[in-house]
């Protein structure tokens, strides 16, 4: 498929607001693509360059894109930056600026979907002395050959933000429709493969294999998540339940196969190099090839440390040796997804727990099984007393549903009014904070994943956190106007507040009263932030209480 055709399809979808119509357009195109093109097309539609399980990165931020664009059109970088500041949408700015180009080439080529993908792969793997220059030149090549409309989507792909309203659900529906595969089969295969591109490929080439897919070592799958709930209603519905501590730590997935080990964060980023001690502990704790789910907590002088401590370790890429001495990390494992090559996610939890206990000789998280609300309540309070966040209740018959936030796992923790929001911008500070960001603009998401601004937060951030945040955001600036900057939205804050109010000042229609920064949620992805639906629920719940 020519890239120009891909861009035209994106454009049609961008102008289509109906989810159903979008799925129809995709379902119509999928069968026309070759086996090689289909997975690439599926990933690109969602603004993904690599499978979801992959830790691979393009290594290309907005700044390199500005440089490449400035070069191709023969203008100063500042000209490009001010155009973007005025328009806001990088894709559309690239589109309008590409009308005029300065650099000529020996061979101008029509871009092909697979060539574009090949260029991206090459950019991702380039390393060493000239890697930035090589990435830049690849981007120059792509932008030099692109029509303006192609430029719009190339730019968005390079920043891995498509924003045309194609979510996972739409793609799954379209694959199901295009190849006549039941949606539960698609869903299940997607949970194990964690790459919609490959799911689509199998649906096209060999749908029978979709039911046989296995979870594979070193291809992390999404973690199963929990909803909030209550002990009594869970006991009423399910009777006997498993209860475990809810650790104030960092979730991980550990893979071991053929003597090799790797550990992944909640966002499925590989953390093996940052957590060598944890990897070593888990490696020694089993002789089997396993994929296990757990949480790592930090301990200093015998006391559990807050979650921030671990994040500091995870974020740190150098001087790991020094950091390993100051704090001890302790992993707790509570589920197993695969043992000795066999995929276990469809087994009931009680069965998986039995296997987990048999393959691990340490670090298995304590658990009680009970049908007594009183006993579980007591366990909950004991758990809080020993420094945990609360408890998890798990249905004994439940399969492991990767990426699912259902009613089979329930978290019980004290009511705290905090919500997770993505940071979309900031304002430069004043006085001694003039070279730092002072207040941050926050957004929630609607059902399409579009971001809606809801609040600003400035309180609760100490000087050391301010400088951490400055380092974190300085390369994410995509636009700047006066004192206001706009960020690539991919950092999540947990924010506390006193009350949720209706408001016309923010796009979300709500505002937070007395918002305060609680912590950075590096482990959370922008897709996991608060939705408008759950805000509405919060609002009605809050007003019921009054």
């Amino acid at each position: 498929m020519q890239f120009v055709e891909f861009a035209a399809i994106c454009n049609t979808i961008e102008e289509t607001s109906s989810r159903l119509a979008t799925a129809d357009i995709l379902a119509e195109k999928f069968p026309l693509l070759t086996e090689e093109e289909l997975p690439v097309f599926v990933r690109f539609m969602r603004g993904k360059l690599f499978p979801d399980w992959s830790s691979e990165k393009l290594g290309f931020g907005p700044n390199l894109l500005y440089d490449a664009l400035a070069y191709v059109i023969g203008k100063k970088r500042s000209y490009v930056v001010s155009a973007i500041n005025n328009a806001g949408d990088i894709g559309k700015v690239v589109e309008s600026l590409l009308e005029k180009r300065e650099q000529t080439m020996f061979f101008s080529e029509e871009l092909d979907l697979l060539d574009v993908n090949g260029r991206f792969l090459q950019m991702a793997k380039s390393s060493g002395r000239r890697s930035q220059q090589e990435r830049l030149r690849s981007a120059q090549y792509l932008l030099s050959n692109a029509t303006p409309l192609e430029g719009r989507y190339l730019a968005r792909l390079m920043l891995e933000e498509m924003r045309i309203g194609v979510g996972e659900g739409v793609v799954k529906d379209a694959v199901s429709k295009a190849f006549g595969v039941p949606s539960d089969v698609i869903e299940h295969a997607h949970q194990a493969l964690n790459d919609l591109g490959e799911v689509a490929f199998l649906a096209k080439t060999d749908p029978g294999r979709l039911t046989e897919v296995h979870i594979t070592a070193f291809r992390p799958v999404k973690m199963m998540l929990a909803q909030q709930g209550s002990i009594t209603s869970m006991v009423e519905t399910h009777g006997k339940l498993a209860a475990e501590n809810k650790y104030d730590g960092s979730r991980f997935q550990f893979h071991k196969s053929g003597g090799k080990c790797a550990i992944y964060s909640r966002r499925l980023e590989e953390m093996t190099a940052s957590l060598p001690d944890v990897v070593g502990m888990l490696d020694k704790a089993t002789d089997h090839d396993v994929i296990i789910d757990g949480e790592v907590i930090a301990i200093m002088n015998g006391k559990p440390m807050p979650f921030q401590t671990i994040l500091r370790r995870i974020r740190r890429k150098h001087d790991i040796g020094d950091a390993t001495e100051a704090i001890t990390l302790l992993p707790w494992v509570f589920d197993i997804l695969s043992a000795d090559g066999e995929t276990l996610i469809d087994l009931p939890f009680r069965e998986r727990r039995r296997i987990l206990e048999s393959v691990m000789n340490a670090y298995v998280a304590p658990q009680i099984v009970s049908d007594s609300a009183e006993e579980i309540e007591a366990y909950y309070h004991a758990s809080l007393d020993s420094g945990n966040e609360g408890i998890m209740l798990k249905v004994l018959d439940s399969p492991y549903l990767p990426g699912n936030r259902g009613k089979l796992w329930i978290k019980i923790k004290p009511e705290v009014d905090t919500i997770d929001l993505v940071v979309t911008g900031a304002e430069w500070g004043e006085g001694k904070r003039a070279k730092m960001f002072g207040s941050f603009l926050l957004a929630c998401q609607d059902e399409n994943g579009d971001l809606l601004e809801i609040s600003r937060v400035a309180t609760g951030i100490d000087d050391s956190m301010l400088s951490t945040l400055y380092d974190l955001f300085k390369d994410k600036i995509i636009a700047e106007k006066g004192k206001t900057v706009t960020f690539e939205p991919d950092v999540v804050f947990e924010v506390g507040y006193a009350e949720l109010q209706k408001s016309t000042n923010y796009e979300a229609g709500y505002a937070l009263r007395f918002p305060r920064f609680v912590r950075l949620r590096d482990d959370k992805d922008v897709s996991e932030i608060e939705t408008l639906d759950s805000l509405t629920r919060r609002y009605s719940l809050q007003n019921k209480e009054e």
Partner: protein
Amino acid sequence: MLKATIEADIFRETIDAVSALVNECRLHVDEKGIRTITVDTSNVAMVSLELSASAFLTFAAEPCEIGLDIEKIRSMMSMIGKTDIVSLELDDSGKKLKISFGGYEYSITLLDTKTIRKDPNAPNLNLPATFEVPGAMFYDAIKASGMVSDKISLAVSADTCVFTMNAEGDSDRIKRELAGDDVHYITCADARSLFSLDYLKDMGKSIGRAEKVQIRLGTDHPVQFSFVYAGGKGSVGYLLAPRIEAD
């Protein structure tokens, strides 16, 4: 098959000339020598190089193609002493190249030639002005221009036969004119094109070492540089696509 020995200096100049623009290349080997032609990542610059068998101290080869990670070899170059003799030997499988020098033996895994872009066809260009200038003089002007701008115009006037290099920045300008004994014309004609200094700086290091570089220039056309090295037994050609000023 390839088994050869070569002086360190010639080996270094060969690698430098190619690595100025690309990280990898396809090397064609036969009994006459080695050659490569390749285009950079952005399709803006091209390099061709030929080194004849007689430039080597010893040379035995049968026709073959090898995929070289030039960047790897370049980074190893600091280990090679100035007066070392470098010996090159392709292993029997054709997948590794053994490079030996000063007591070291470096075995480098070759790239699958299928993964390297196919050789470009050098475009057929009608470039009216052809002349020679001292390589070092040209490179000095490029370096100076880089201080004020990121592009440079190269121009020849048919009336005066002066070769002008002009770099204009936001506030500053650097102009270098070459005339008289410094330029030797083969054909003197009107020509003017604009080029990115980024690429010229990369090419300039090798050009700067050449006693003379031949430049072929047109108007809003690519520029071609050719020069010899290894006592005339090696030749390098660079081609750079112009920038066309938007109005």
